[in-house]
């Protein structure tokens, strides 16, 4: 089992698409480029004459390299190990996060709507996100980065089953 032994609840059974790693790496690269684009003008504007300030221009680049290392090298791999999902006979269950983990469980009888979204980067990798919404604004399950065809199929199946077991006690 990939999960740490101290996990408070059972881990969902199925991993997300393997291409999600590539997608997270892409997002890390984009984030790094964005920070770099912000950093360069800041470096040009900084005064460099004072002696105690002479170390200051180095702070930004060092932080940027650290960020890039974490966001590109580390985070995607950890995320791939953490993110899992499962649809059981009664509920939709998913876990996400990389440092702080969030497990969400929604019974099929309480599903209000099911959304499938495909972001710009996701389309490059042929991935999609399923969002299962309930009557509570905080009780949403999001399963990110499933193969698009799987996502469509699962969403249709969930909507169909929700119609049959919907109860009014929301």
């Amino acid at each position: 089992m990939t999960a740490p032994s101290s996990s408070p609840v059972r881990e969902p059974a199925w991993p997300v698409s393997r291409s999600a790693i590539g997608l997270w790496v892409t997002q890390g690269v984009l984030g790094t480029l964005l920070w770099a684009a912000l950093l360069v003008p800041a470096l040009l504007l900084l005064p460099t004459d004072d002696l105690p300030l002479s170390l200051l221009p180095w702070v930004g680049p060092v932080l940027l390299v650290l960020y890039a290392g974490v966001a590109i090298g580390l985070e995607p791999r950890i995320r791939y190990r953490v993110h899992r999902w499962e649809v059981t006979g009664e509920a939709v269950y998913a876990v996400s996060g990389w440092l702080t983990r969030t497990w969400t469980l929604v019974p099929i009888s309480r599903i209000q709507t099911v959304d499938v979204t495909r972001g710009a980067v996701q389309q490059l990798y042929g991935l999609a996100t399923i969002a299962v919404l309930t009557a509570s604004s905080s009780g949403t399950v999001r399963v990110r980065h499933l193969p698009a065809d799987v996502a469509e199929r699962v969403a249709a199946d969930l909507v169909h089953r929700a119609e049959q077991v919907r109860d009014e006690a929301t």
Partner: protein
Amino acid sequence: MTGPVVQRTSPRVVLLHTVTFKQARQWVPIALPVGAAIGFDSGLTTVAALVLAVTLLSATSAALAWWRFGYTDGPTSVVVTRGLLARSVRTVPRDRIRGVEVEAPLLHRLLGVVRVRIDAAAGATTGEGEEVLVDGVTSAEGERLRAGLLSRRSGATADAAGAAPAAEPPAEEELARFDPRWLLYAPLAGSYLAVPVAAVGALFRLLDELPRDLRPDVDGVQLSGWTAGLLAAAAVLVLLALGAVAGAAVVNWGFRLVRRGGALVADRGLVTRRHTELEVDRIRGVTVSAGLGLRWAGAARVSALVTGLGDAQRRGQLLPLGPRDRADALAAQLVEDPGPLRRHPAAARRRQVVRAMTPGAVVTTAAAVGAVLAGWWPVLAVGIVLLLLGVPVGLGRYAALGHAAGPRSFAVRRGWVVQEKAVLQRRAVVSWQVRQSPFQRRAGVATVVACVGAGSGAYSAVDLAAEDVAPFTRAASSDWAGTLAG
């Protein structure tokens, strides 16, 4: 046209809206530049003409609005038609009506009319109710609307058109009645203390706008020494307390909560009388909350968590202010008490204390460096005080934590500045969320969030022992939560 006829509001509303400039207010942005162009300073006649023009404008727009406003109270839906140029027709199916509120502000009361607010939750996903407002019907008509809308909506029982609302008075059970002595709690509640502060703020803004020669001259008063300062502070405190009591009295005067058939009915207010109805079937739970001051005095307030209720903060109130034991008893009458709360593990106490001390630790560390380099000794002292204060705060936060699962309901409690205990029905849970940060993982605890389609939408048990998570979720909802245990 078949079916019920289109009804109008009382013509008295025209007078009401003329006086309050209700419709005319939207013309203010246009009127101001016009007025400025004419010039305000050309003497008394101009001012009189302006006042007359504004009043006429207000009366005309109020009359037009009244003329174009109609409502139909049909067997399956309520239709409200309005709008001068762009007509808007809003249809609310009866089965979507979640509550009806009858309000009578002071001017309305003088004219014998009321305002009826019909609450209709549109989509449950947004969590926002949509309101339909029928302003200015006679009190009798308002009462008829309310009784008719609510009785025919629930269950469509044999309620023939002829059955007058007064003919079938369902059994009434009084659940709470406001005792004027409870007003003494008001100065201890933050929200009521804010009332006089806001009033003083408004007063100062008014003073600012007065011409200089009209302002009271307070510069001449000499304040010197400690006694004067203390006196002033004491006076401010007394005024704040009086203001809070007065504010609470105005809002809550004559508060009464009764159960009438399948609905909870709350009446309240000194100047504006409010009448709120909640359907018992839609209640998913209650919260009993109390700030530091209220806890010290042994007081609390109770709110209902109702699905699809707009403005739930105000309308869900079941007991605005009252003794703790009364609050608990009222809560237990509506949602079964799940039994005594269980404490959270020792790791939770450690975490709460550490978290409460963190800001102090940061300040102390920074100040220690600063003290050595630049002599920031006062800052260091502040940091140490903050650090030490963190201990009681953390212990207080830990003491507030608790959870319990009973046969039909469950409870979670948290919060130190404002402690809130939520007691929820098992059927209320629409989803479970379990969160664990790296620190929580090391400490072997996790936070469990019960997501509910009512109230704030999420009620958490913070820092539950990791091994208790699955049993608690299973015990507090149905079989489906067994998925977490695996």
